[in-house]
């Protein structure tokens, strides 16, 4: 037991590496992608608005980074009433 504790205490570098990797993945995403996310938000909003009336407040664009992949999430809330109107007009 004591031996395990001893070994555990010594090998602290892997902990440092893991903490850094997680932290930097997060920091890089927030610093580097803040402009990109803002741009995507604007353009996605513009594209959707051409076809469906949406509330700009209810559009969410997020870029999340995990180990090897980045995940782009776009959440758009559409009112049932609005959607019906648009479909009606199209028909």
């Amino acid at each position: 037991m004591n031996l395990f504790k001893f070994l555990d205490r010594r090998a602290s570098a892997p902990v440092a590496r893991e903490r850094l990797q997680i932290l930097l993945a997060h920091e890089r995403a927030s610093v580097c992608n803040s402009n990109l996310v803002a741009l995507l938000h604007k353009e996605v909003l513009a594209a959707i608005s051409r076809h469906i009336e949406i509330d700009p407040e209810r559009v969410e664009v997020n870029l999340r980074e995990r180990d090897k992949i980045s995940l782009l999430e776009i959440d758009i809330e559409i009112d049932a009433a609005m959607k019906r109107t648009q479909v009606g007009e199209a028909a």
Partner: protein
Amino acid sequence: MSKILVVTSGKGGVGKTTSTAALGAALAQSNHKVAVVDFDVGLRNLDLVMGAERRVVYDLINVANGDTKLHQALIRDKRVDTLHLLAASQTRDKDALTEEGVRRVIDELRERFDWIVCDSPAGIERGATLAMRYADVAVVVANPEISSVRDSDRIIGLLDAKTERAERGERMEKHLLLTRYDAGRAARGEMLHVDDVLEILSIPLIGIIPESEDVLRASNVGSPVTLHTTTSAPARAYMDAARRLCGIDVPMDIPADKKGLLVRLFGRRAA
């Protein structure tokens, strides 16, 4: 063709000034004309590490503002003819430096020197961004320690965004200089290994400077370590790094102090 090299790190106390002096002197020792420039306005220290603190009359801000000529402010090193120092001002603050003023000084230095080595202040504020502004190549100094690596990552981001080179859409050449490295502790998992730092920061390695008493000994007497104890492990590591900066292919090893059998057996007493 002259090169502007910025020595930067984000975090303070990792060895920027020591590395500027050591690399500048190493380059000058191989007959390059070198100017080392202190950008740490208000907290200058490069003059002290170079042993020229009593010879500073004019400084970077005097030249940048046009109060004095460059040649009057440059201090020629007494040991190496091709090495010059441009000190920072101790009485002014960082706002005294302007982008335009720094550009004029750098342009003038380019005409006279092969290497202009800019010692950046710590932090990511004006002083640090001005030191890197006109750089062609950057040496990012880091210790194998989490806060230093994190700050280096931030500085790498700034080098790719805030330098003139980056703004022109050109590639900014960046190198990692790992200082205060203890190979034994890294092998035992007590310290971030060089491979860990390289994997995290993803920039090429220019040198590994081992933790050594010789670094403090050299700065105590006001000498770049590469001039003070030329055969010491850190001096050899800095000289190798300087050769790599010149494009020479030098195998990467971690220099260790050469210890004879007697030293190994009797430790400090025999040393």
